[in-house]
């Protein structure tokens, strides 16, 4: 046990010190989600190696089966970067005091998340029901938005926390009549007879964002990491977007990596708005709508207590946006939307 404590201390110290120094080896965590599958595909197809070599780096993509654990491990310093949704980037690493930079805005969910009801065709029918969902996640946020747009409050339903790995099978139980989920589970759940998606992320486009974030200090010390990652991403995007056999092969390989069929994967992609063009991503990041979205997300998170006990106001966590705009505590900025590398890609300067 002493050894354990010592190991904890050592693990803590070594990770806390290293980011400041230039390094050549990096670990990026990923978990299975339609919008993130290009990363492992790029590694398998050799795109990662190509770009890493170009900048003299070694980049490893580490699969973490459990999404929350991947973000936790990033927060704990075991990973240099991770794929994450905007809300979780705010509430886990940023709220935990880890200065985090969003360098790639990959996509937004355009129907990949949905509120499902059995025996009900609109959001109003949800009132008073038990809703199974991953609490405090983007699903929770989606539910809050669904209720809000229909004149209800979160208190009008009873939420039951359900693990994302189990929500699909849980939904097949007759006892469960309402749920919020994301893909790929969502597709399986829609197959349950009598199910309707009464509210989807397509109703709030651009609010649920899927990102790649890296540790700000590491990025400062190793700007090449950002360049390599942007290079990898947009080369893969270009390949994936092709409507020819090559593009199809790439998408099929991603489906395989996600443990599903190409058909199902295509259907998931169809509800994902991919920023295949770096210019569009840069523009989206610079737009004032992002600030509005993040404010909404932030207020929801604060109301749910996600900023922890120390936070006494929604401004506790500071965010920085392109063009010097900020939100929250200016002296404690821990989430930075940084378009530098996407801009380089857009400019073809990588």
């Amino acid at each position, binding site marked *: 046990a002493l050894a*354990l404590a010592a190991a904890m201390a050592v693990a803590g*110290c070594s990770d806390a010190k290293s980011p400041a120094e230039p390094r050549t080896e990096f670990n990026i965590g990923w978990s299975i989600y339609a919008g993130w599958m290009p990363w492992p595909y790029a590694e398998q197809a050799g795109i990662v190696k190509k770009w890493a070599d170009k900048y003299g780096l070694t980049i490893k993509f580490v699969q973490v089966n459990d999404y929350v654990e991947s973000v936790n491990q990033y927060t704990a310093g075991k990973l240099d970067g991770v794929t994450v949704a905007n809300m979780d980037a705010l509430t886990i690493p940023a709220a*935990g005091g880890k200065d985090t930079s969003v360098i790639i805005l990959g996509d937004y969910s355009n129907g990949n998340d949905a509120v499902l009801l059995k025996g009900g065709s609109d959001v109003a029918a949800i009132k008073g029901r038990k809703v199974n969902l991953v609490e405090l996640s983007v699903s929770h946020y989606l539910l809050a938005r669904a209720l809000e747009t229909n004149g209800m409050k979160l*208190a009008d339903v009873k939420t039951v*926390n359900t*693990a994302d790995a189990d929500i699909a099978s*849980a939904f097949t*139980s007759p006892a469960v009549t309402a749920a919020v989920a994301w893909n790929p589970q969502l597709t399986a759940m829609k197959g349950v007879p009598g199910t309707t998606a009464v509210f989807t992320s397509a109703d709030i486009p651009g609010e649920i964002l899927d990102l790649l974030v890296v540790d700000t200090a590491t990025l400062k010390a190793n700007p090449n990491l950002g360049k390599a990652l942007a290079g990898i991403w947009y080369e893969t995007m270009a390949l994936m977007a092709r409507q020819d056999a090559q593009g199809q092969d790439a998408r099929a390989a991603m489906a395989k990596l996600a443990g599903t069929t190409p058909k199902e994967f295509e259907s998931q992609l169809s509800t994902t708005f991919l920023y295949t063009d770096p210019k569009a991503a840069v523009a989206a990041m610079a737009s004032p709508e992002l600030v509005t979205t993040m404010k909404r997300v932030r207020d929801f998170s604060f109301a749910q207590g996600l900023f922890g006990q120390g936070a006494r106001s929604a401004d506790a966590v500071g965010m920085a946006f392109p063009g010097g705009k900020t939100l929250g505590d200016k002296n404690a900025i821990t989430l930075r939307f940084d378009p530098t590398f996407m801009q380089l890609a857009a400019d073809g300067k990588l």
Partner: protein
Amino acid sequence: MRWVNRRIGRGQALLLGGLPLALVVLGYVVAAAARHAENPADKILPLPGAMASAMAALLFEPDPLSGELLFWADTLASLSRLGIGLGIATLSALLAGLMLGALPPVRAFFSPLVTAIAVIPPIALLPILFIIFGLGETAKVALIVVGITPFMLRDLAGHISALPREQMVKALTLGASSWQLLLRVALPQALPRLIEELRLSLGPAWVFLISAEAIAADVGLGYRIFLVRRYLAMDVIIPYVGWIALLAVAMDFVLSRTSRLAFGWAHKARR
């Protein structure tokens, strides 16, 4: 004096036993302080003060939504699930263990099935459990039961079938039927072992309870732990885990006391 012969008094034992626990706590505090010196907002190893204030809210401030004191509501929910689960598991392990241990035909019939159930990881078959037990309290209790009963049952059956053969022969010459033999010879000698198994099962039982609460729940110690894990609130997780350990140690103590009081003969023999 040789180490095998050193007898340790009660007071000395408390002192000695407390030492490593104290060292662990100390080690933790040192590690946490070191991390906080680096990053004052560190969430991984919260300082005791942070844990205290995080817990205070759960302990004393009623939840705005439900109006309940969350910590106590969680404790109550988890303990009642655990209690029901352990109760069912113990009872069925006792009944089935006695039969399997004492009656060879029953053993031949069921033991492959029991072995199969014992080695199938229940969490891998959750979807089927959901179909059978739904998603409510039943499913959580069922997961505990399915998780620990096979171990208790197999160990108990082994214990019973290892009772000296002379005892069985003796009982038969005294005119015992199979039923009477179960009731008056096997059962009383199974009970102290059953308590021992229950003590050994407390750890796994909590594991299954927490897994069940992680899967689908809206209250419970495991629910809270997995919920706040989403934002790495170790300042809640660590006190919760400590509380679970405390509850489990208390149960362990009560069980071991009960066994000594109720089955003195089993402990005298070992002096």
